């Protein structure tokens, strides 16, 4: 039986996936799109809060504090790095750079899936 509110993590997965979709479409259409906009709304604090389950407004007791793993910290850095690249897409030199970002971000997504499954 599932036991926690894993929807905040699912939401993070959704917005990162929109980032991936957005980059894929950008490579074809050469212009920004609404999927990228969704990805750009994702904030570092939100990812951290979802990973440490800090959603406790109406719980009987507050949740225990959990430290982020190295992998999770690296995932957050990757998201921020990709967002910076998207904000400067006009300065990106080659399609290969965007493809490499898709590859890296897609791999990091596993870390969030793992966190969701471990709940």
């Amino acid at each position: 039986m599932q036991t926690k509110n894993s929807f905040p993590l699912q939401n993070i997965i959704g917005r990162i996936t929109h980032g991936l979709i957005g980059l894929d479409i950008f490579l074809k259409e050469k212009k920004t799109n609404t999927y990228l906009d969704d990805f750009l709304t994702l904030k570092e604090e939100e990812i951290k809060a979802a990973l440490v389950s800090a959603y406790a407004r109406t719980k009987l007791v507050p949740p225990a504090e959990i430290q982020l793993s190295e992998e999770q910290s690296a995932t957050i850095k990757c998201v921020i790095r990709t967002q910076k690249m998207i904000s400067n897409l006009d300065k990106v030199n080659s399609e290969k750079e965007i493809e490499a970002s898709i590859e890296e971000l897609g791999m990091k997504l596993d870390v969030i899936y793992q966190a969701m499954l471990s709940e």
Partner: protein
Amino acid sequence: MSFDVVIESFTRTEAHIKEVPVDIPYRFQMQALNRAKELYLVWLDVYKAYADGYRKEILPRTKRHVVRMLNSFADKLEGKVREVLEARMPNEAYILVNEFFKQLGQKMVTFVLAEGTSFEQTSIFRLLSDSLSRIGAPRPVRASGSIDIYIEKIRNRDIPVIYYEQGQYDNVLSWPLLLHEAFHHVFATERLDRLSKGCPKVSWLEEALIDMYIVNYFGPAYALSLATYLQGCPHETTFSHPSFTARIFIALQYLSRMKKDNKLLLSSNHISDLYDYLLKVWDEYKKS
């Protein structure tokens, strides 16, 4: 990689949700569980509409990520449904919470109990919002508005979901804690934050006020239930909650006041025993 696998997964999830039996002797409870079921099926319609949109996009590099995401969405939703429809809490707990709402003048509150890791109050719409917040509809279906119609349907027919800790389902002494969570709904709908006028400006005031209200409503039984439960998770003050010891102290103070006002109807020996127990718990943890 094809979207067919997603459609198959959604079809299975839909069949599973429909198949979970809701056979309860109490009409209000049966209606609540059927309404929850109906809302979860609409929720699945939202995901289906998302899937329809994604499948119209040409995604040579990222289709597998989309398929994975949609499959995990369906799995998670099915898990949430089971937390409600397969909750082991006895029907009598439903009667207790229903009676509590009635006595507070909230006659028409449709709610469900769910089995999770902690006592918590939320709602089906709030969980959906957690899932889809700032994830816009896929471009090809965005203009149709179909997703917004489904989401609005869930918002309009939303119901509170009261979670209990799974190990507590057969512990009757923990049931008063359900009332604390149920009262969060009353606190929000009746805008009881206005009670905070004249109180210290602290971020955890709502939790403290609710503890006081439930002590007032349920008397020493709630204080005993809270103290016994919190001994297993003796927490410090956080943004949302006063410390464990402060909560025991608040309950003690409120019971003292009720005793003074002759509002406690139990025998004085029983009250004294409980009072001693609370003092002991408070004192022990205050020292540590």
